[in-house]
């Protein structure tokens, strides 16, 4: 195991961060704009989000690079900025983190379907490798390949990210099938854990999904299926619209209550995904006190 991860695991659980997109919107990111581009155009505001999470108790923060792969950036005409956006994303989070907080560079999915021939394995590998290189040069301590629906794509991103020699975690979304416990492509929690372990992941996780309650059993099963550190960042729940604004009806305290059950299952890293904010992180950080 990498020294970075060994050191991190001395505290239990490790508190990660919450959603970034909605936080950036609170700081002025327009609807439909490319959040990742803000690393170049509004680095100060991206840094505010990182600091808000650190102030709330995050011991690990991510980077604002979730969609900063060539295949997504080209939809915004930013395909030539992949390296710069990722490097800046790494630099911004590291600056906010100083020496106290560990930074995981975020790599999200390509938005293309490998099995339908929309993209080749080689194109995916190159896209993720370039993103990972930018993150590594920006100084991140580790990489998290997250929100993956397709195990094949996740494995390609893992292999590409490992070229940096940094520790790489992989986190899948389990939201499909009758019991909502499989990936979009039908892979079970156990099969994903075994395959990612074999492919060399340094940690395995589940994020996003249908809300924290549905991730309690997913977390328990992941902890049984692997010896590797387990990373869980669930959504707050399903969003609703109240007075024209997006609203999640789960309170930070309720989120923290379920997070406690998830931590008791043996999960090492806990945080939130869509619908969470620094208040949610503050509530789960309080569980450690």
């Amino acid at each position, binding site marked *: 195991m990498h020294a970075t991860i060994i050191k991190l695991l001395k505290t239990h659980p490790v508190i990660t961060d919450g959603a970034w*997109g*909605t936080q950036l*919107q609170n700081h002025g990111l327009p*609807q*439909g704009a490319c959040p990742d581009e803000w690393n170049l155009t509004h680095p100060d505001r991206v840094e505010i989000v990182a600091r808000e999470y650190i102030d709330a108790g995050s011991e690990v923060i991510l980077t604002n690079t979730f969609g900063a792969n060539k295949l*997504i950036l080209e*939809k915004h005409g930013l395909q030539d900025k992949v390296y710069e956006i990722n490097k800046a994303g790494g630099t911004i989070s590291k600056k906010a983190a100083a020496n106290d907080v560990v930074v995981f560079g975020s790599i999200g999915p390509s*938005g293309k*379907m490998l*099995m*339908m021939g929309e993209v080749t394995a080689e194109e995916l590998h190159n896209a993720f490798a370039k993103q990972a290189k930018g993150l590594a040069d920006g100084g991140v301590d580790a990489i998290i390949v997250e929100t993956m*629906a397709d195990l094949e794509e996740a494995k390609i991103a893992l292999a590409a990210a490992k070229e940096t020699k940094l520790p790489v975690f992989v986190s899948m979304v389990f*939201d*499909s*099938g*009758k*019991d909502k416990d*499989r990936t*979009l*492509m*039908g892979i079970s929690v156990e099969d994903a854990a075994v395959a990612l372990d074999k492919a060399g992941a340094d940690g395995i996780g589940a994020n*996003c999904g249908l809300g924290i309650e549905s991730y309690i059993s997913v977390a328990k099963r992941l902890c049984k299926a692997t010896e590797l550190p387990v990373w869980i960042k669930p959504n707050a729940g*399903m*969003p*609703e*619209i109240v007075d*024209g604004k*997006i609203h999640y009806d789960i309170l930070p305290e309720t989120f923290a209550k379920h997070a406690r059950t998830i931590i008791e299952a043996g999960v090492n890293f806990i945080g939130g995904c*869509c*619908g969470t904010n620094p208040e949610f992180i503050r509530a789960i950080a309080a569980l450690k006190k």
Partner: protein
Amino acid sequence: MENLKMLSEAIINGDAKKARELTQQALNHRVDPQQIVKEYLIPAMDEVGRRFECNEYFVPELLIAARAMKGSLELINPILASRGDKPAGRVIIGTVKGDLHDIGKNLVASMLEGAGFEVIDLGVDVAPEVFVSSVKEREPNFVALSALLTTTMPSMKQTIDALQESGLREKVKILVGGAPVSQRYADEIGADGYSDSASGAVGIARRLIL
């Protein structure tokens, strides 16, 4: 008709090459194209949907079956069109403004095509006014709206409001779907139908068109 049973099998198994061959053979033997669709292709896709609902099939199987179905329909549809047969219904589909995600939208489009609907795909990041002008021009039965992001869900409401303001709302049924979308949200914004899966969307469309 033995070959036509095999056509159903080929669709269910996602064997596009075989499905095309068997469709062509049937057409060469002057089997009525409408009969091929109604008695063999659509029931095959219904079986695919059933297997999806009970966890035997997942998205990959759904996609390859829909692709096989599409191959057969490419042979059949020109014949149906030339003699003036109408499709099951017409659907305009798109991912709403600000949202660039298309996997879910494409999946729903494939399944609707597989069920015999004519699908007009407007792509991603589709502005409300583009939906409005397309509805005016193409007069669909359905408008299907997709969003993956919490932050772009409000574009669904804006699209429905724009259709309302243009006086077109009552002329179409509106279907919504996507990861953050729920039945409650669909009700709040005044959509006619919601499904949490692509195969479910077909059932809703069939029910609403009656």
